[in-house]
C-alpha cells in the first residue's frame, strides 16, 4: 500500500538529494570549462572559510531573529484582537490576508517603491515632516537594510502566523477564563497562565513556519537590494555562486549546507511540537 508513496518520494526527493550530494563532492565544470572531478569535502571546506558565505550566514541569522520575533509578537496581537467578535471582523480578516496572498516578489516591488531614495514615499513623508533633511538610502547601510527587508518579509507572513494563532486561541475553552475570573484572575494573569500554555502547540507551528521561511529568505532580498553584500542571505549566496559565478560545485555544496540547517531546525521544532501536544 505504501509503495506508490515510497516510489514518489524516492524519485522526487531522494534522487535529486543523492545527485546533489554527489555533485557537491566534485570540482571543475561551469565557469572553469574543465571536466568535473572528485574533490571530496574540499568545496565544503572552501565555503566554511569564505568571508562572503560567513557574512551571508550572519545576515540570515539576523533575518531569522528579527523576522520571527516580529511575526510572533505581531501575530499574537492580531490574533488576540480578532479573537473577540466585533462589527467588521470579517472585513478585517479579509484585509489581513491580502499581504499573505501577494507573491513575495510583488511585495518586494511595492516596498521598493516606498523605500526608493529618490522618489520613495518614506523619504517624501519624512522630508515633508522635517524629520530628515536629505533623502536617506534605506537599503544602503547594514542595519536599516536588514531591518527593512525583514519588515517586508514579516509583512507577508504575519497574516499566516495570525491565523495559526487565532485557530489556537479559539480552541481554548471559554469556561477556563470564566472559572479563573471567579477565582479573581485578571486579564494579564489569564493570558500568562491560561492562554500562553494552551497556545503552545500553535506557537510552535507558527515558530516553525516563521523560522523555515526566514532561513530560505530570497525574493525580498533580491528584489529590494539585488546581490549587494550588505544584505545577502544564504540562499542569495547559493544563487550568486551557482548562477552569477557559474560555480555549481560550491553552489550545490552551500545548498546542501542550507538544507541540513533547515532539516535540523524542522526536527527540533517537530520534537517541540510533540512535547507541546502531549
Amino acid at each position, binding site marked *: 500500500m505504501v509503495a506508490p508513496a515510497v516510489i514518489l518520494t524516492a524519485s522526487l526527493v531522494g534522487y535529486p538529494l543523492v545527485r546533489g550530494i554527489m555533485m557537491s563532492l566534485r570540482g571543475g565544470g561551469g565557469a572553469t570549462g574543465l571536466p568535473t572531478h572528485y574533490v571530496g569535502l574540499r568545496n565544503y571546506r572552501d565555503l566554511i572559510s569564505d568571508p562572503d558565505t560567513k557574512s551571508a550566514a550572519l545576515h540570515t541569522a539576523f533575518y531569522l531573529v528579527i523576522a520571527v520575533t516580529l511575526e510572533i509578537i505581531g501575530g499574537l496581537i492580531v490574533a488576540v484582537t480578532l479573537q473577540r467578535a466585533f462589527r467588521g471582523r470579517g472585513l478585517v480578516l479579509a484585509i489581513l490576508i491580502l499581504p499573505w496572498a501577494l507573491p513575495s516578489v510583488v511585495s518586494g516591488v511595492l516596498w521598493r517603491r516606498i523605500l526608493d531614495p529618490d522618489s520613495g514615499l518614506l523619504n517624501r513623508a519624512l522630508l515633508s515632516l522635517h524629520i530628515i533633511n536629505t533623502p536617506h538610502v534605506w*537599503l544602503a547601510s547594514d542595519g536599516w537594510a536588514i531591518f527593512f527587508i525583514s519588515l517586508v518579509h514579516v509583512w507577508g507572513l504575519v497574516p499566516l502566523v495570525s491565523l495559526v494563532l487565532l485557530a489556537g486561541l479559539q480552541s481554548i475553552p471559554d469556561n477556563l477564563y470564566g472559572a479563573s475570573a471567579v477565582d479573581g484572575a485578571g486579564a494579564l494573569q489569564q493570558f500568562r497562565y491560561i492562554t500562553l500554555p494552551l497556545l503552545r502547540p500553535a506557537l510552535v507551528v507558527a515558530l516553525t513556519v516563521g523560522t523555515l521561511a526566514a532561513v530560505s529568505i530570497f525574493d525580498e532580498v533580491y528584489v529590494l537590494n539585488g546581490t549587494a553584500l550588505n544584505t545577502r542571505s544564504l540562499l542569495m549566496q547559493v544563487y550568486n555562486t551557482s548562477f552569477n559565478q557559474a560555480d555549481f560545485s560550491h553552489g550545490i555544496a552551500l545548498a546542501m549546507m542550507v538544507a541540513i540547517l533547515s532539516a535540523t531546525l524542522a526536527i527540533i521544532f517537530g520534537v517541540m511540537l510533540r512535547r507541546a501536544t502531549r
Partner: protein
Amino acid sequence: MRWVLAALAALAVGSLVATACSSSNDSSTTGPIKGQRITVLIPYKVPQSILDRFTAQTGVKLSFQVTAFDALHQKLVVAASAQTNIADVTEMDWSWVGQFGGSGWYTPLEKSLPAPVVADLGKTNKIFTARSHLYAACYSNDIRFPIYNGDQFTKAGISSFPTTFTGLEQTLDTLKAKHVAQYPMTVALGATEGGVTPWYLLTLSMGGQLFDKDNKPVFGAPGSVAHQALQFEIQALKQGWLNPGAITLDDAAAADRFTGGAASISLASGPGSLVTANDKTQSHIAPNAKAALMPGVNSAGPTLGLPEGLGIPSTSKHQAAALAFIKWWESTPTQRLLYKQAGFLPCSGAALSSLSASGELQGGAVVAEAVKHLTPLFPNGAPPWYPAFSAKAQGLINSAVKGDISVDAALAQLEDATKKIASR
C-alpha cells in the same frame, strides 16, 4: 508468450519512431532551412519590422526572445551545463567568450561564416576568439563614452564637454550651482554587471589598468589608479553630483535618469544610449543628447569597448538556419537598420562606412575618435574566470561606494579573491 511478443513489437515500433525522430533532426541541420523555426535570445529589443525581413528572405520562422543581460548569462550557463537547448542563436558578450568557448558550449564559426563577412568584422574577431576558434560574430560595437544634454549645458552657460577630470568636476559643480539638475550626473553603482563597468571605465580613462599583460590583477595596491577611480565614484556621491540612490541602480535605471531629464551627463554611456536618448518615443530630452569623449588626466582619456556578438550553441538542432540568421544580421542593409532603429553601432566596417558616408552616424566624429582611444580591459583576452571575478567585484565595489568597507579593503579583498579564482 503473447505478452512477450507484444513487448517486442512495442520495442520495435519505439526504435523505429526514435530513428525517425533522430533522422529528422539530422536533416534539419543539413537540409533546406525554409519552414524551420529558430529561437534567438539576446538582451535587447529589435523592431518586429526588421525581424520580419529575415523570415521574408529565408522562409525561416523566428521566435525572438529578450531577457535582461545578467539573467541571460545565468540562463545560458544553466542550459549549457545541463546540455539542453534554449535557443539557436544567442548573445555572446565579450566577457563570456573565455568561459563559453573554452567549455565547448558553442559552435566555431570561422569556417562556416563566409570569408568576406569574417574579414569585414576585422579586429573584433580577436575578442570573440578562444582557443583559436571564432565563437561569435560581433554585432554591437559598444564603446563607452559620455553623453550629455546639450540644452541643459547651454542653460548652465557651458559651451563644451570637458576633456579632463578636473574640468568634469568644475562642470558638475556649475550644473549643480545653476540648478540645472539637482544631481547632474548619472552612473549605475548597484551590485550588478552594469554597476562595475563605470569603475573599469574610470580606471582606464584615468590612465590605469586593472590587469597586466598576463591577466594578473594590478588594482590592489593603495594609491593605484583603480583606487582613484573608485574614490571618484565615492566623491561624486558625497558632492551630490550623483543621486544618493545611484548605489542601488543598474545601468538601465541609471540611463532612465538621463532620458528623463533628471541628469545632464550619463558618464559610462555609449552609441545605443545616444540613439535612444534622441528618440522622441523613448526620451523626454530628444534631440538634445550629444556624444563626448571620456575625460582623461590631461586630455581625452582611453575608453573601454564592450562588444557583443551572436553565437550558435552547439546544442542547436538548426545550425544551418541559425547560421543563415547571423549572415543576414551581419549584412550591411540589416546592420544599417539595426543602428538606426535599435542603436547597435555596427562592428562591420562596410556598414560603418555606409552610415558615415550618408551622415546617419550620430556623433560620428566622436565615435570615430573614441575608437582610437579603445583600451582592452584584459590585454590577454577575457579569461574563463571573468564571470566569477565580475560577481565578486559587483559585491565589493558596491560595498565600497556604500561606505560599508574602505576602498583599500575592498580592492585588497578583490585582488586576493581574483588570484584565488584564477588559480582554480
